[in-house]
C-alpha cells in the first residue's frame, strides 16, 4: 500500500465499523430500555438510589472496590453464582437492573464475593445490625471474616476517647482483639455511613416477567 490516503481510509473504516457495529447498535438497544411498571403495586423498577446511597457509590469508586469485587450475577447454567452456599442472588442480573445506576461497575475480578445483591443477604438480621456487620468488615475485616484478604479501611472511621463525652450510639462493638483499646471508641465517619448505605441498597429483587421468560433455558430436546 503506497497511498497514505488509502491507508487512512482503511484505518478509519475498521474502527468506524466496530464502533457502529458494536457500540451504536448496543446503544440503540440498551438506551431504549426503560423502567418496568409493576401492575400490582404500580411502582417503577428498578428504583434509583437514595441520595445517601448515591454518595456511597462515589465512595465505592474512590476506594476502588471494583478491583476485587464484581457486581454481576451470572445466569442460571453459567457458573454457579445462584447455587446454595454462594447464593449471590435469586436470579442472574439483567441489563435493566443497571439502567438507573450512574456508573455501572460490573467488575472483572472476584478476589472477593460478588456484591450485586449484598443488600439482601441479611437473613434474619435487622438492617441496623446488618449495617454494623458492614462497619466491622470495613474497619477490621478479620473480626467478621477470619482469614479474608480484604484490606482494612480504618481511615473510614474515627477512633477517639470516650472520656468526657457521651458514648456514641454508632460506636462499633468490636471483639477485644480488634478493639482499639480501653476508653476508645470507633465511630463511622460520614463516608463510611454513605458507603454502607450504598452496599445495603444493592439488591435486585424484582423479577421482570419479560426477561424471566426470555432467559429461561430452552427445554432439552433431542435435537439440541
Amino acid at each position, binding site marked *: 500500500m503506497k497511498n497514505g490516503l488509502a491507508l487512512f481510509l482503511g484505518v478509519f473504516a475498521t474502527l468506524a465499523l466496530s464502533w457502529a457495529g458494536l457500540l451504536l447498535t448496543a446503544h440503540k438497544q440498551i438506551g431504549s430500555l426503560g423502567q418496568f411498571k409493576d401492575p*400490582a403495586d404500580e411502582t417503577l423498577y428498578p428504583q434509583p438510589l437514595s441520595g445517601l446511597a448515591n454518595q456511597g457509590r462515589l465512595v465505592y469508586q474512590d476506594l476502588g472496590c471494583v478491583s476485587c469485587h464484581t457486581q454481576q450475577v451470572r445466569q442460571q447454567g453459567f457458573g454457579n453464582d445462584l447455587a446454595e452456599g454462594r447464593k449471590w442472588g435469586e436470579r442472574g442480573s439483567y441489563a435493566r437492573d443497571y439502567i438507573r445506576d450512574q456508573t455501572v461497575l460490573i467488575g472483572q475480578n472476584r478476589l472477593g464475593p460478588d456484591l450485586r445483591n449484598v443488600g439482601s443477604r441479611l437473613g434474619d438480621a435487622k438492617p441496623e445490625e446488618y449495617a454494623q456487620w458492614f462497619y466491622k468488615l470495613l474497619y477490621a475485616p478479620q473480626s467478621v471474616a477470619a482469614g479474608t484478604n480484604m484490606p482494612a479501611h480504618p481511615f473510614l472511621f474515627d477512633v477517639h476517647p470516650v472520656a468526657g463525652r457521651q458514648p456514641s450510639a454508632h460506636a462499633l462493638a468490636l471483639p477485644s482483639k480488634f478493639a482499639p483499646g480501653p476508653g476508645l471508641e470507633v465511630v463511622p465517619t460520614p463516608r463510611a455511613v454513605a458507603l454502607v448505605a450504598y452496599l445495603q441498597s444493592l439488591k435486585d429483587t424484582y423479577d421482570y416477567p419479560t*426477561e424471566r421468560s426470555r*432467559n429461561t433455558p430452552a427445554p432439552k430436546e433431542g435435537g439440541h
Partner: protein
Amino acid sequence: MSANDSNFRVEQSAASDDSIQQVHARLQKQKPEKTDGYSMLPLVLLGLMCCAVFFGSIYLAHFSLRFDPLVYSEHANREKPGAVKVVALTRAQMGKKVFDTTCIACHQANGMGVPGQYPPLAASEWVTGSEERIIRIVLHGLNGPITVEGKEYNNVMAPLGSLKDDQIANVISYVRASWGNTAPEVSPETVAKVRAETAGRNTFWTAAELLKIGN
C-alpha cells in the same frame, strides 16, 4: 565468544533501511512461484479462512439469540417469543397498593381497625353492602356516630375524592375481597357515576344519611 559479547554491546544491522523497503516492495508484488512447496500456502490459508468464517457464522447465528436486547443467557430458548401476555391482575390485587398507602394507618393491615377508634372492614356490612354507600364514604369521608358489626364508633374519616376513579374502584374491590369478605368488585364507571351524582357535595357524610341511600 567475543563476537557474542560484542553484539551484546552493540547490535549490528545486517541490512540497510532502504534496501529493506525496496526488496519488500518487490516481494509484495510478486508471489513466489518458483518452488512447488509454496503454492500450497495460499490454498491452506484460504482453507483456514473459510473454516474460520464458516464456524464463526454458525456460532454467531446460534448464540446471538435474535440479537434480542433482553436475553442474557446463551442457553435461553431460541424460539421467537410469542406476543407478550398481558398479566391480567384483578382489581382487588391492584387495590392493595392503594390500601397499603392510604387506608392501612387506621383500618390496619388485617382490616380489623382499632377497637373503639377505627371500625373494622373485615365482615363489615358497610363494606360488603351497597356500593353506593361505600363509594360515597370514600369520596367525601365520614364523621359522626356509626354502628359497625354491632359496635359504635365516632370518628372522622378523611375524604379521598382526590384519588382517581379506578384507584377508588380498585381499593374498594380490594376491601370487598379481603379478610373473608366476598362482595363483588366495583367498577370505575360506577365510581364516576356516583362522583357525578354527588358533584356539589363538600361535607362529610353521616351514617344516617347513608342509610337512606341504597340498601
